């Protein structure tokens, strides 16, 4: 990327911002569904029926998003961020990406290992990616819960860091990813 672009660009590209907020909405919905699902008798079936296709949708969105990110120019970090903060921010971003890819794959794999049909909608279903093995299912089922909590904690850290920068340090970090266009001053 050329220096002139990097210094002019204050925001992530509109595609990147769209992907970001789409992912945020999908993942937060998914966490709520997951929490409700495991505690519900009356709505269990309805929620699981949404949970499966939504998980696959997140997997697809995150993969496209990651590819798009690779070909996009990122705005520079704010001057208020130290090199250490910058590497923490980048690492946590990568960690979130990893979780968002691994979690749907674990869900898909755990249904495969349980020999459940992986129904998305109507007669549309996915092929199993693992052999029928209930011990494997038990491990993956547990991993799915652990990863969900990790995802939630990572989201909280990400959210908290942005709030801190935006409200305490007042360095305009949020505007980098704001869903609307922020004009250069």
């Amino acid at each position, binding site marked *: 990327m050329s220096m002139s672009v990097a210094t002019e660009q204050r925001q992530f590209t509109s595609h990147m911002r769209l992907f970001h907020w789409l992912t945020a909405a999908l993942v937060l919905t998914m966490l709520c569904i997951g929490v*409700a699902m495991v505690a*519900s008798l009356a709505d269990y079936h309805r929620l699981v029926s949404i949970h499966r296709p939504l998980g696959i949708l997140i997997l697809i969105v995150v993969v496209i998003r990651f590819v798009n990110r690779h070909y996009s120019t990122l705005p520079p970090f704010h001057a208020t961020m130290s090199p250490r903060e910058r590497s923490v921010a980048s690492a946590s971003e990568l960690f979130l990406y990893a979780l968002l890819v691994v979690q749907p794959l674990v869900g898909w794999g755990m249904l495969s290992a349980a020999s*459940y049909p992986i129904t998305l909608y109507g007669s549309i279903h996915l092929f199993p990616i693992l052999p029928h093995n209930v011990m494997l*299912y*038990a491990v993956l089922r547990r991993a799915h819960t652990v990863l969900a909590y990790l995802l939630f904690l990572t989201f909280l850290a990400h959210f908290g860091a942005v709030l801190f920068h935006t409200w305490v340090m007042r360095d305009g970090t949020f505007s980098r990813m704001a869903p609307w266009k922020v004009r250069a001053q």
Partner: protein
Amino acid sequence: MGGWFNPEALTPARFADGFERVDGIYSGFRLNHAKGVCVSGSFESNGRGTRLSKAVVFKAGRMPIIGRFSLAGGNPYVADEPEMVRGFGLLFKLSDGEEWRTAMINTPVFGVNTPQAFYDRLLAAQPNPKTGNPDPEKMAAFLASHPETVRATKIIQSHPASSGFENSTYYGLNAFWFMDANGRSIPVRWSLAPVQPFAPANSTGPARPDKNYLFDALIASILQQPLQWHLIITIGQATDPTNDATIPWPDAREQLDVGTLTLERVESEDTSPCRDINFDPLVLPEGMAPSDDPLLSARSAVYSQSFTRRAGEKKLPSAVMPSEVRE
């Protein structure tokens, strides 16, 4: 979300705890219908069901099935008794890769019509540790507040049990919706009617037979010749309740024979994939959908909880060993 915020609400986990409290914990076994044996064979659809549902299972043709016969209760080593509820779980492998799973029992209606009533009855029937028998006062109190259970019990008692698994009729109990190719929906129930002739319980064999006598007779009869059932769809009308498994539909409702199930092989749970299958009644192909019966989603949730718990447990050997049974 009820269970997340309200510690009193019934959740799949609390349901499972209830089974473990009443029946004890048996590593690797189902929480209910723990004692069982696996069977396999095929379903030959005669094509008549396509009138009711676009589900691939009803297109004329043969498809493989896996099944499991069981006795109700959480003890996998319980001694067979003729009046115990007999279960039959079935998995149809459809040609397009879809599955249909159903879990049936040999009573024409279910004893309760809500998950809470199921749970309350489970606890009311818990044997007192001192006497070894359920506390009659607790059951009386349950029945006093559940007239539907009293009515259902009368209906169940008017259908005496057959002599064995092989000549039992199995009922899907809950109502479902079938959707045909034109988008029309109808309420249905289903059952499996045995080709093997009915014989009343206890009319054959000694008064106090072997503790596996029901399973052993099933195994011996499959080894002798394949066992067959007709899959019967009962077609409901708009006035028939779809949300109450304790109420039978009128006898006059049309019944359609949509195909024949043939069981050719019997295998111990220890070697068959059936042990590791959750016969979740809401694994349905396109063309079938759950009704508003509150038991259905709850069954799906609790079966799943039971499956997840036993999946990671050490597997103990099954009580029923077909290899020990001779023709």
